[in-house]
């Protein structure tokens, strides 16, 4: 029996002029775990929002036989309120007509906790929770709302491997309790380990629905991206050259050499952000450091300015004489960058109307033009489709061949292992471990350090 059936729906966003969904169809059976996969910008999140009813479609039919609850990619929890308050928003038990019955809410939530075997102190403020616990709160929230259909948008993206494993177990137990689950994920493990079927989307369209058991893992990734994923593993035979740049982090000196890539990783609040801020400061006063920020939407580009204004932001003085800007020079320069790096946009368009991948290309183009010796790349492929990510990996590879030094700050353990000569792992604001022999490095090992299970 289909609990969700979607037929030929379309959705157009006038704000950024994109056709998010066109002629999309999807059928979900009651009680299954159904994964939805596809590149960034394939329209998965929009589809989920339409199923949940927070977004309306332009045309097509939707039939949903049950109550939906959605856990979106960025948590909707309110940091300054406690767990209980966050869970009951929208479904507050009421006494005397308008007073919130916290006692009753407490009992109801505890029932759920016992039923599923979770443990949480309901009076804790959200800001004091780990990412995994926040996720759990989101899950309890949708269960508390009596939802039959639970929708998860990239639930494991921010979780550590251990937490993700726990999360997958939770989903299986939810399935046992006859909930229907729709999950968006980029992680192959999420799909192979728990899903019954998965549907592939590309550019807002339905491609196919596959029964998970009928294919093996490598097939899944092929199905996901449409093309075979190239895994550019860096050529480690190039020996690092002379010293380029060094900095001290919590009493530990980190030195970067020519033709060397140093990876720095960790989970959640491990201190990676603070480190990025420090490194950004260093890059300001040093023309030889090129910095690609992780928060590219606010630090990397200026969304309300013309693309050409964004592209020359680091060095406007190069295009000026006596303080006067030479716009013709700027135009020529910007056109050159756009063609060279295949940025899809015009020099006069508003930067904010570019897609995520193109925004990152603009940032990297500007940094590469600076021709620094040292590169600080922070989560360079985060939230970018596979093709663009691969281009970035190739770019890093060629930089290494040109004797440049690269500092790669990333939460993505796999990416760090693939690229780096050496990996530093942060835990609670300090370096907990250094992996120098890359042959032993696995995401599992890094995961254990990152979550503090192995303590050096």
């Amino acid at each position, binding site marked *: 029996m289909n609990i969700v059936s979607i037929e030929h729906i379309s959705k157009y966003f006038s704000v950024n002029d994109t056709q998010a969904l066109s002629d999309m169809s999807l059928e979900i059976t009651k009680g299954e775990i159904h994964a939805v996969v596809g590149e960034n910008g394939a329209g998965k999140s929009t589809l989920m929002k339409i199923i949940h009813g927070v977004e309306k479609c332009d045309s097509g039919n939707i039939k949903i036989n049950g109550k939906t609850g959605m856990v979106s990619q960025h948590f909707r929890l309110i940091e300054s309120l406690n767990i209980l308050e966050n869970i009951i928003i929208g479904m507050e038990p009421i006494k005397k007509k308008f*007073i919130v019955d916290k006692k009753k809410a407490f009992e109801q939530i505890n029932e759920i906790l016992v039923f599923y075997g979770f443990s949480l102190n309901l009076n804790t403020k959200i800001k004091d929770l780990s990412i995994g616990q926040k996720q759990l709160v989101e899950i309890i929230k949708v269960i508390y709302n009596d939802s039959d259909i639970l929708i998860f948008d990239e639930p494991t993206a921010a979780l550590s491997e251990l937490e993700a494993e726990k999360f997958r177990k939770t989903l299986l137990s939810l399935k046992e309790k006859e909930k229907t689950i729709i999950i968006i994920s980029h992680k192959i493990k999420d799909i192979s380990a728990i899903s019954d079927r998965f549907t592939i989307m590309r550019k807002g369209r339905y491609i196919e629905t596959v029964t998970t058991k009928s294919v093996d893992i490598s097939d899944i990734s092929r199905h996901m991206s449409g093309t075979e994923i190239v895994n550019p593993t860096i050529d480690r035979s190039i020996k690092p050259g002379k010293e380029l740049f060094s900095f001290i982090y919590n009493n530990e000196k980190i030195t970067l050499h020519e033709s060397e890539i140093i990876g720095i990783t960790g989970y959640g609040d491990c201190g990676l952000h603070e480190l990025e801020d420090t490194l950004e400061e260093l890059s300001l006063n040093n023309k030889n450091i090129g910095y690609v920020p992780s928060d590219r939407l606010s630090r990397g580009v200026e969304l309300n300015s013309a693309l050409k204004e964004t592209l020359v932001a680091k060095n406007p003085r190069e295009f000026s004489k006596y303080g006067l800007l030479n716009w013709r020079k700027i135009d020529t320069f910007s056109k050159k960058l756009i063609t060279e790096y295949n940025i899809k946009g015009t020099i006069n368009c508003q930067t904010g109307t570019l897609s995520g991948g193109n925004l990152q290309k603009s940032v990297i183009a500007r940094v590469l033009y600076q021709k620094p010796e040292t590169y600080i790349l922070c989560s360079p492929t985060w939230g970018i489709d596979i093709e663009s990510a691969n281009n970035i990996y190739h770019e890093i590879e060629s930089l290494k061949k040109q004797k440049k030094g690269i500092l790669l700050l990333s939460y993505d353990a796999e990416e760090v292992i693939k690229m780096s000569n050496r990996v530093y792992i942060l835990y609670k604001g300090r370096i907990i471990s250094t992996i120098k022999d890359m042959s032993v490095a696995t995401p599992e090992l890094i995961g254990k350090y990152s979550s503090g299970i192995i303590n050096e």
Partner: protein
Amino acid sequence: MNFFEIITPFLLASIGGLYTEYSGTTNVALEGYITISAFIFITITKLTNSILLGFCLTIGIILIISFIHSSLTIKLKANPIITGLAVNMGFYGLISALSYKIFKTKGVISLDYPNIETMPIKILAILLPFITLFIISKTRYGLRLRVRGLSKKSLIYSRINADYYRLTAMMISAILSGLGGIFLGMELRSFIPNIGSGRGWISLVIIYLGRKNPIGILIGCGIFSVAQIFSNYSQNHNVPSEFILALPYFLTLIALIISMRKKTINNR
């Protein structure tokens, strides 16, 4: 004017403004609502000779105006600060134009009433911080209102009409500051063009001084009222009137600097 007469309009306007703060925005039109309510109240009372009618119709008209003001702001996705300023400006023009049209004057409009009982409003004003504290911490409306201010998306994903909470909060602030205006009109038994004399603006500052907490605001209002009495006192001692008129703004600024400075140090 004694302490309770001074503190009442401050309390009404600042607690009213607090609701909009909880909903995540600032209502800068408090001053305008004080003034126009006083004008409407005096006008209707004068024309109908009934205080009750004047009171009820004023509340009704303010409800309608604030509904239009806030729903347009929300629907047009306009900047609430700017629309608030626009409302202040529009009220000023409207009052002058109507006052001239109806009474052939842009100045003082007086009522011929001996005395108007304002005790209920004073009592309400004093109780208001406590009522608000209860609403915010215990009721569903209060919880959702706070959530609206902290994260609009959170409400949308729980499929709650987020705009409803901002709309009602704006209307509550308009009605309460309007009540402050009516109170001033009742006390003076007349309308004078600058009847608000900055009370709406000072109330905004009191909200910040009181750290957006009803009891903090009660204390802030108390301090301001004492300052006001002090400045009224010095008025009888040959200090130029301009300086006395400037004093509340000056004290506000000083209080703001001191309170923000403390906060900055605490945050370090």
